[in-house]
């Protein structure tokens, strides 16, 4: 099941790329379609951040992951590189769990 999802979604993502380079530009140039497509990554990434940090199964919780996210916000505001942000958040969460 996991393998099927990986391969289907993987091939699907490739076809989405190929479609972009192949379809005549006017097809998606309706302003509403373009705006929605532009906003979808923003909405999905924000939802993923929220669920990844504050959900545990079907419960909403505040734990070491929230502290990690706060550190990530600070590092991003300081224009830290991606890897520093990601591992900085991990480090803080790990240290908090070590102390708890």
């Amino acid at each position, binding site marked *: *099941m*996991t393998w099927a*999802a*990986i*391969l289907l*979604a*993987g091939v699907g*993502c*490739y076809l*989405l*790329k*190929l*479609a*972009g*380079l*192949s*379809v005549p*530009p006017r097809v998606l*140039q309706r302003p*509403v379609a373009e*705006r*929605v497509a*532009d*906003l*979808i990554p*923003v*909405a*999905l*990434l*924000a*939802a*993923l*951040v*929220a*669920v*990844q940090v*504050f*959900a545990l*199964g*079907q*419960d*909403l919780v505040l734990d*070491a*992951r929230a*502290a*990690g*996210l706060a550190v*990530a916000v600070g590092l*991003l505001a300081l224009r830290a*590189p*991606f*890897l520093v942000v*990601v*591992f*900085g*958040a*991990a*480090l803080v969460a*790990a240290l908090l*769990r070590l102390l708890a």
Partner: protein
Amino acid sequence: MPEETLSRAQRAAIVRDSLGVGVATGAYGVSFGAVSVAAGLSVAQTCALSLVMFTGASQFAFVGVLAAGGAPLSGGLTALLLGTRNTLYGLRLAPLLRWRGARRLLASQVLIDESTAMSMTRTTTAAARVGFLATGVAIFVLWNLATLLGAVAGSAIGDPRTYGLDAAVGAAFLALLWPRLTDLRNRVVALAAAAVALGIVPLAPAGVPVLAAAGVALLAGVLTSRPDPTEFPEAR
């Protein structure tokens, strides 16, 4: 678009910039590999995602949904929705790159945020192709090597929560989102989407909350009329 030949110096400058972006981005693959194994995927499944799917946000989303206990189908749908932005990149780049046939089939696989950012600003087809391929191929090679490294290391270290790797996923998503948050409408959409997703968490199986948040994008796209100034990510 004039079809000019590039001087050796121009080509070298574009390749140098592209490789810089390629090395920095490819290294993220380590965090993807570690996070994916932490989410319960095997090393082979993790490497298959980087080889076949090869678009970072979709890959992180897929393993993120599975880590939260979601069905593989929900993970796949979320990955596909996030992958739609590559279609938009392709629509913009097609008249500039002008590839056909087998070359287009091959080039499509490396159509991602960074290769778009490093080619769309070029004024000639030749320069755009060099920027696109140098960035895309460098990231493809390094991302896959780094994924393997992270996955192998990740599966050897035991419970990933001890190392805070579950917190790393949220930070990675936020870092991918961050460049888009300079725009006020995007901030509103992001906050609303996060609120919708968290509101649905107690009510629905994992994976559904994230998909439901796409409805916020639909609503905002229909109700507003201004184009998005942050559409293309800056090269990092």
